[in-house]
């Protein structure tokens, strides 16, 4: 059906998709899974014509369609949905469906004036078709509602409904399940199965929910680092150690060979602590932790992403939040920073409730945050980046800058250079250094190693350990769980926005249940 031959899509230096080769078979529901940043959505966008590929070929039914525009691909029977619903907000639900069929008579302007009767006849037919689709999706009561007023899940259903308005040969579904509650998710799953059986649609779906994947998909393709890792049935993939490794990230052992020069970061030995204090260390007592988000519940729009989730960190400790994609790891961190409004729960800093404070006010209280992307001022020099980090400080911060330069000697060399001209790893250093300029008591890092090379990763972790040893509380979300847990004092495993496991980093790594949970479920 769709054959992809060594497809590449590079954004500048970033190889989002590199040499991906896969085959989507006719009449099947193919699942596409992989850790964050594996290039799944980029692959979809490239197949669907939103991006022009950097290299490689795409065949649709044997015909070369590389570089076709989206509307041309649609005409050939390829339809896609979007991860974030792309409804037409000022059209009604019914209109959202009725606009889909191609080559409608009334889409030619002249016909709207001269061939009104035939147009109306066709419209009536389209309306019946759309109403049938709404019936199928159980959306009929909402037919005349503006699509912009639907809930997130209903918009997802509508996206699916649009694909049913045309004779699609193949449908690409990008995370139809994201932000949808369980019941609706089952409905969507049913709809996909019925479409596949009754109308013989071919599907290819990106999905994080392994339950849904197991239920619907065969085969499942696993992507990692822009290429296809393996392919097989859901059960095979689930059991595949390689796949779990990909989700956990590369371990230290792999890179020890490359990083002989870099001092190997070691988790801080904790021999002096008694068992009792260690137990207390792991229990969630509010006043034990310096910075804690208690029973946080909330999300964007309607759906809750966090479900009574508790995360806390003490001074001089590294805490890592890990978990499958879509577990709410970054969201938990954003909630603690105040970028997300919570429905329940509170945020405490040093025993003071700061739930009501805006992000800026929290920054002023000593919380520093390093975002995952766009975390440096690219048009400013390294030194200016650091100065901006210290913007709130009115005192002389040259000493702090000196300390930061001690920590990241490379930055001292490059302090006159624009941050945008640095390599990825150096930029990451600038980002961390900028955050340190406020002399924070808490440092929060959102996936600091995303997209950097293993060598740089080790180096960065070594620096983070040094920062910890200076008494800063460090809270980190990390995709590369193996690496992160190996340096962490404690780790939280989140699944579906709730705490699943909490333990010492090494203990978590050794726990087979934790390893399983990484694939979702």
């Amino acid at each position, binding site marked *: 059906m769709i054959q992809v031959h060594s497809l590449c899509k590079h954004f500048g230096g970033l190889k989002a998709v590199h040499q991906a080769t896969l085959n989507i078979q006719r009449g099947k529901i193919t699942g596409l899974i992989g850790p964050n940043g594996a290039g799944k959505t980029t692959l979809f966008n490239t197949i669907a014509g939103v991006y022009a590929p950097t290299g490689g070929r795409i065949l649709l039914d044997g015909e070369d369609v590389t570089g076709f525009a*989206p509307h041309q691909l649609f005409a050939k029977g390829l339809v896609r949905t979007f991860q974030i619903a792309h409804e037409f907000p000022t059209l009604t639900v019914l209109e959202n469906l009725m*606009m889909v069929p191609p080559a409608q008579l009334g889409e030619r302007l002249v016909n709207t004036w001269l061939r009104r009767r035939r147009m109306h006849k066709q419209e009536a037919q389209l309306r019946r078709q759309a109403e049938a689709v709404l019936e199928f999706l159980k959306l009929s009561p909402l037919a005349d509602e503006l699509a912009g007023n639907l809930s997130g899940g209903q918009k997802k259903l509508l996206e699916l409904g649009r694909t049913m308005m045309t004779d699609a040969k193949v449908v690409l579904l990008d995370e139809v399940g994201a932000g949808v509650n369980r019941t609706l998710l089952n409905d969507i799953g049913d709809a996909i199965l019925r479409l596949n059986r009754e109308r013989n649609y071919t599907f290819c779906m990106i999905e994080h929910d392994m339950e849904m994947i197991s239920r619907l998909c065969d085969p499942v393709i696993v992507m990692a680092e822009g290429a296809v890792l393996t392919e097989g049935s859901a059960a095979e993939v689930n059991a595949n150690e390689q796949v779990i490794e990909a989700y956990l990230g590369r371990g230290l052992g792999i890179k020890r060979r490359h990083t002989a020069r870099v001092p190997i970061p070691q988790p801080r030995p904790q021999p002096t602590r008694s068992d009792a204090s260690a137990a207390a260390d792991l229990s969630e007592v509010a006043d034990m932790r310096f910075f804690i988000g208690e029973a946080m519940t909330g999300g964007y729009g309607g759906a809750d992403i966090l479900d009574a989730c508790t995360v806390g960190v003490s001074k001089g400790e590294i805490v890592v939040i890990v978990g499958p994609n879509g577990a709410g790891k970054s969201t938990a961190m954003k909630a603690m920073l105040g970028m997300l409004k919570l429905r329940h729960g509170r945020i405490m800093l040093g025993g003071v409730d700061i739930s009501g404070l805006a992000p800026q006010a929290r920054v002023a209280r000593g919380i520093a945050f390093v975002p995952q992307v766009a975390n440096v001022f690219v048009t400013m020099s390294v030194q200016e980046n650091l100065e901006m980090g210290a913007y709130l400080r009115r005192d002389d911060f040259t000493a702090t800058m000196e300390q930061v330069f001690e920590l990241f000697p490379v930055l001292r060399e490059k302090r006159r250079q624009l941050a945008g001209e640095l390599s990825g790893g150096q930029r990451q250093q600038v980002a961390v250094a900028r955050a340190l300029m406020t002399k924070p008591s808490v440092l929060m890092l959102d996936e600091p190693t995303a997209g950097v090379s293993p060598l740089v990763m080790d180096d960065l972790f070594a620096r983070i350990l040094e920062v910890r040893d200076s008494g800063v509380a460090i809270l980190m979300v990390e995709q590369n769980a193996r690496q992160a847990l190996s340096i962490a004092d404690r780790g939280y495993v989140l699944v579906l926005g709730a705490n699943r496991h909490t333990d010492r980093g090494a203990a978590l790594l050794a726990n087979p249940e934790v390893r399983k949970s990484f694939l979702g479920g």
Partner: protein
Amino acid sequence: MSQPQIQSGQSGQSGQPMQPMLRASLAFAVIAALLLLVGIGQSWSFALAIVNLCLISAIMALGVNIQWGFGGLFNVGIMGFAALGGVAAVLVSKPPVVAAWAAGGVNLLLAAVCCAVTIALATLLYRRMRKGNARLLCMTAVIGLGVLAMRYFYTPAVGAIEAVQPSQYGYLGGLGLPIIFSWAVGGLFAAAAAWVVGRVALGLRADYLAIATLGIAEIIIAFLKNEDWLTRGVKNVTGLPRPVPYEIDLQQTPWFIHWVQQRNAAELSELSPEASGEALRALVVEASSLFVKLCYSGLFAAVLAVILALSITALNSPWGRMMRAIRDNHIAANCMGKHITARHRQVFILGSAVVGIAGAMLTTLDGQFTPGTYNPLRFTFLIWVMVIVGGSGNNLGAVLGGFLVWFVWIEVEPAGLWLVDNATAWLHAQHPVRVHLLASAQYMRLLLMGLVLLLVMRFSPGGILPEVVRRRQAPAPAERKPAE
């Protein structure tokens, strides 16, 4: 071009306080009442003059609404397209100046041929040669030579044409056809210009389209002001023929006099014969002026009705649905198989053509073409105020905006004068502040227009008649309930 909607998620949830049709009828009733008031209070002739310009403004606003309300395209070059309509009126209706054609016609045609050949060659090179410095060099050479060749013919031709009785002609004249044809031709001119602009600027994002159209409008005006051989430039073309009778002719026409006499038989019979003759003459003069204006109103209203009907049917059809979908989210629409660039180009050309038609009508009404009077504030931004205030995305709204804003534009000046006069009555009649304020009262209207625009955007972002939500004609009551 994403989401032109100023409003975000309007209507729907907020619940509509009034049925859209009722709201529209009420709004138009208010306008009618205002115009009647002017008719009774000031004069009928003045009221009709306002109506005529209201009609033309409404057509222009419709054209802009096609671009903005349907397609989300931000065009601030309306003035240029209106002026192209105006020049069409000259070129269609004025008789050809034979002497000028004889003096410079051949050279001018040769210049046109040179121009065409240059463009053709340059296009050929662009398509055939590979991208690079060689192509750039070749194209520069071809265009440079072409311009030289063109100027070789063009300069003497223009000199010769402009020397033909400069006080009266000095230009080529037109085709000598009835001026009413120029309305269609004006639309075509504007459409052609829009096609060119669209080729360059439609792929770019909204800001660039705005600045590109701003520029093209200035260029068009500069062209019309300076190419005397075509338009007489700032010397203006006056005395354009009319599509309706002249007052002087009417006053001599027996049936008209008779008709006026009959209408006023009662009043006239009470007067003495001499006095009645005098009174009749005065009545005929007044009636002839009203009659002519009414003729214009009829013609303009007919054009407005046709364009309005076409826009409404188009917007209510699958085509309109597709346009609104593209406006809402062009990426999704593209993935649903709709050709975005082609549709954008289509509405851009159509909207500009409608503006061009209105421009030709305006010049027809004025009876003269005066390139110096085109001013972006009056011809571009005022029309924008009409569309936003009336209700973008709603054809009736644009028409309403055209009527209302033009009415305010005209009536604000006397109202402002009256206000200033009364507010400063306590000052000495020659007091400099009072004199200055009285002289400046006319500029109040720009200020007021800006204020109205900002207030509407802030407090009623959908305009007076917001875009209608197209629900099914007769939804069953059960189906109207929004689900939880």
